[in-house]
């Protein structure tokens, strides 16, 4: 019974927390630029407005279905992420499942944007998939590294191992190189600058979103809110020892998110090939180095 309740309400909780982070990011940017900034729940107003638009233009059924794929893929991934109080599905699917499912939303978006036949959208989506190939390398390598270090691929076991011994057993302490690589990958996954190449409002008119209006854009916003929650939680579960309570989780998420936003606000945008090269060169080699260290450790012991 408890599990059923969690399955129903977990997406809503993730959505509301995610939307708070979206508001926080806009307020944060405004305050750094010495503006007063919008209200804290501005993204909520935006989503209400988008979902209650009177007209909607659909470019065919693929366009409609792709957004369901976007939202559905994100929700499916969310179910496999253990959080305090809910780890039912995490027992059935390990990190490899998450690695697969996290690709579904991008592919869904690619199908739908292709259907709208907007050149800006096509450029945007090709950049998004290129960025995906970029940040997936350090992301997957740090996944593999953590798995090798702890002899498990289950995210739930990883959390328990990290919680066994306080801060000293957190992933970021036992293997800082992998943690750093994953932090870079996180920046790319959240689409913040300097890896914001596929939104790029001044360059390609928000890329994948350029032909989306009304409810379509609303669903994209909802998905983005959930994605923020999801990706921050993955990072925390892998490297910051998960969390015992929801308060602890939110505090950790806020700290990591503030770090990401602070990088976002001071950097410009990379060119897409530069972003890709950076992702493979620096975080990629950091992660590789981390894995090599782990292999040596394990050979010696």
């Amino acid at each position, binding site marked *: 019974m408890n599990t059923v309740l969690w399955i129903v309400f977990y997406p809503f909780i993730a959505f509301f927390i995610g939307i708070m982070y979206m508001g926080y990011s*806009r307020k944060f940017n*405004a305050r750094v*630029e*010495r*503006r*007063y*900034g*919008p*209200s804290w729940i*501005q993204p909520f*107003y*935006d989503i*209400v*407005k988008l979902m*209650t*638009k*009177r*007209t*909607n*233009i659909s470019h065919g059924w693929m366009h409609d279905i792709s957004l369901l794929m976007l939202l559905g893929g994100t929700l499916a991934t969310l179910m496999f992420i253990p959080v305090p109080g809910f780890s039912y599905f995490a027992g059935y699917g390990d990190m490899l499942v998450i690695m697969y499912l996290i690709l579904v939303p991008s592919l869904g978006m690619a199908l739908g944007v292709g259907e709208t036949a907007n050149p*800006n959208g096509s450029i945007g989506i090709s950049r998004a998939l290129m960025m995906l190939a970029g940040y997936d390398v350090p992301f997957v390598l740090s996944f593999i590294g953590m798995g090798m270090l702890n002899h498990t691929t289950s995210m739930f076991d990883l959390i328990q191992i990290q919680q066994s011994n306080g801060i000293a057993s957190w992933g970021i302490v036992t293997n800082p190189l992998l943690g750093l690589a994953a932090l870079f990958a996180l920046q790319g996954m959240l689409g913040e600058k300097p890896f914001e190449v596929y939104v790029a*409002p*001044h360059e390609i*008119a*928000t890329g994948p*979103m*350029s*032909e*989306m*209006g*009304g409810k379509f*854009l609303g669903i994209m916003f909802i998905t983005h809110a959930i994605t923020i929650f999801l990706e921050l939680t993955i990072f925390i579960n892998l490297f910051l020892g998960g969390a015992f309570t929801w308060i602890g989780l939110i505090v950790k998420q806020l700290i990591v998110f503030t770090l990401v936003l602070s990088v976002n606000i001071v950097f410009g945008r990379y060119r897409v090939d530069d972003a890709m090269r950076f992702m493979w060169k620096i975080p990629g080699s950091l992660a590789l180095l981390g894995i090599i260290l782990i292999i040596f450790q394990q050979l010696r012991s």
Partner: protein
Amino acid sequence: MKKQITQRNAWDKVLAKLTKRSLWMLHYCTGCGAIELPPTMTARFDMERFGVLPMVTPRQADLLLITGYLSIKTLKRIILSYEQMQSPKWVVAFGSCTINGGMYWNSYATIKRLDMYLPVEIYIAGCMPRPEAIIESFTKLIQRIDEGKANSWKDYYTNYDFYRKNQERVFGKIETYNDIKADGEKFDIQQP
């Protein structure tokens, strides 16, 4: 004839309270007035306080800001952009050039009155209006949305023949990509 609904119900009022806080604008920088927009957006006057945010494509925008004189060539693009926007949508016309031609009254290449071609919600008078005036117009628009009076966009659906006639007088036959009347029937848009 169908009974016209004049009373707004409670749900509409709640929605108006929420949606008025989020207006995304597409600024069509045609005239000199556009130079007043950067200070309005950035730290000095900060229009994001009111939830007004610049957006880049017409599909996402609710607000079309027309900043100054409109040449006949630009008008055609503006009409195409306007028809791509999703309702409810509002046009804010900026500067005396859009009201009566302003100092381009004698020009052969500009139009004089914008509201012959598109339904204008709010005019900002002045040549050129200061950022305070722009902010004032946004708050005015927010107030009108709250009161349920900002319905000029419905006019384009119900009174399309008038606008189309004027547009064709300027351009001759033009090709637009949306069937406005069919859309209006599909989404059931009538004057309140």
